[in-house]
């Protein structure tokens, strides 16, 4: 049912291409850096810790507050992009080569999801390494905790990306995915502002967004017990694991279906 050889080679292919395209790495890292320092830096002036955006007395600046969100953003974008490269493969043919191979559809989905995971975690780790510049103090354990959460979140988003990719045949749909799925997921996640501060309707949308729980878990890892997060950690991790499994199963079934 699950072929290690196929999963390995699917991951190896993505990884090799990732290493080869230096420009892709630079451009994907540029986005979170711009958000962190330009948006975060600018907003920090507007939003002082006492103004209610962040609970008073916690002693963290807005730029520090959005750090987990920006980590999540790095993952969101690179994992989704990595998965929807399936659409690219469909349009330029390589997907057919994979689909006619004697490989279970589940292995294809897992191989693709793991490719996205590895690439996203590498990028997230680079962003995570910026923490000293933001005046955040992290111990070794917190760093490991953050990386584990990054891995889970990457896998979850990558498998969601595969589900999305199965619905599209050509890359024309790229902007639709960006504007109607990726951007709302990012803004309705507590990445840029605490979930509790949103109006009820938006709070509801936030709660059904799996990405929210990834950001929240990262807040746990990075700020510890300072009350910045919205949900308990076990709930965050539970949601990530369950949604990952669900997405993988759905993607596997969608891949299995033939016209």
């Amino acid at each position, binding site marked *: 049912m699950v072929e290690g*050889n*196929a999963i390995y080679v699917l991951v190896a292919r993505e990884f090799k291409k990732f290493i080869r*395209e230096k420009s892709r790495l630079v451009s994907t890292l540029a986005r979170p850096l711009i958000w962190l320092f330009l948006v975060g830096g600018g907003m920090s002036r507007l939003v002082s810790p006492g103004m209610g955006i962040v609970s008073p007395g916690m002693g963290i600046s807005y730029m520090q507050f959005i750090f987990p969100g920006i980590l999540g953003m790095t993952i969101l974008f690179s994992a989704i992009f990595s998965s929807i490269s399936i659409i690219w493969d469909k349009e*330029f043919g390589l997907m057919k*080569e994979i689909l006619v*191979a004697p490989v279970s559809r589940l292995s294809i989905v897992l191989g693709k999801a793991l490719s996205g995971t590895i690439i996203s975690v590498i990028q997230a780790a680079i962003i995570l390494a910026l923490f000293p510049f933001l005046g955040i103090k992290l111990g070794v354990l917190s760093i490991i905790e953050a990386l584990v959460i990054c891995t889970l979140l990457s896998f979850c988003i990558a498998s969601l990306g595969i589900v999305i990719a199965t619905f599209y045949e050509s890359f024309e749909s790229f902007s639709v995915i960006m504007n109607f799925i990726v951007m709302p997921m990012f803004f309705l996640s507590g990445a840029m502002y605490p979930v509790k501060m949103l109006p009820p309707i938006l709070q509801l949308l936030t709660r059904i967004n799996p990405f929210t729980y990834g950001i929240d878990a990262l807040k746990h890892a990075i700020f510890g017990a300072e009350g910045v997060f919205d949900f308990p950690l076990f709930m965050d991790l539970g949601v990530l694991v369950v949604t990952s499994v669900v997405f993988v199963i759905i993607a596997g079934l*969608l891949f299995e279906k*033939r*016209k």
Partner: protein
Amino acid sequence: MHIIVNCVSKYHLCNRGIPVVIFHPRPFLVNSYMPIIRVEHLVKRFGNLTAVNDISFEVEEGTIFGFLGPNGAGKTTTINILCTLLSPTSGRALIYGHDCTTKSPEVRKSIGIVFQDSTLDKDLTAYENLIFHAYLYNVNKNERKQRIEDALRFVDLYDRRNDLVKKFSGGMKRRLEVARGLIHRPKVLFLDEPTLGLDPQTRANLWEFIVALPKKHQVTIFMTTHYMEEAEVCDRIAIIDKGKIIALDTPENLKKTVGGDVIYLRTTDNLTARQEIEKLFHVEVSEQDGELFLTSLKGDACIPEIIRAMGETVVSVRLQRPTLNDVFLKMTGKEIRAEGVSSGDTIKEEVRSYRRRFGRG
């Protein structure tokens, strides 16, 4: 290979324990008639469009089978069903005895495919593309490297093995794809329009190479083409039009059905000339693109007679030995390529939009 193994001998122990070799009568015939591909009443509809309309055929092991027809006739749809990418609406397709719909893992193991559009990863090198394939098909670790190197040498790309595929020409890519399709030693190799978009020189080279495959690699070839000349290398040909098989035979037999040579004739007054020739020679004359044509068993002898009879009204005459194009013309009343472009493209577009609306293909 296995034919030889089968026919050499089978040891049966007699009651005294002496091994007795039993030779099967006509072992070759018994064993060689095993259709490696069997298609029964296959139908495929996309919405209202019937791409494949009740076709049946068999392909014998070790032969080259050609699927010939204009664009949009249903060739690629049939290939996609055979290689497990599409499910038929009804009917069934078997490869090596395995049903393409219900036993797809077994079918996938025994086939190799070169699709119409390149399915190489252009950002990987030739070698990496083949390694990718070898892993996907779980080729034994000890053999992987050797098979890939052999394949690269076979298609004359060994020196370019570490170049990115995006630097390759169309012909090189196609050759690399054929090499890739053979790495896992498939029993059937599908070639969907293998020479599409290649220049004549490259096409000729590729054909030479394809024709040698069944012997060299013990593989059966199933190919599609809309170039009539190319189909002549096949052992058997199915002519398909509008989703139906309209003829199925060896190229020689198909050409015989045209009934000899074809004489094309331009006259100052086609209508009168047509009636007159029909009256004088008792043959059927047809018209296509302002040119009259008729078939005759001895075309070269017939031409002088026609000219004598028609006198000065004849503008030009040409004689053509039968080709598969004539077969197609005779069976459908149209040129294979004239039909091709426009309607083929609409069908492709329709299939594409159908898939867009109803999810993946």
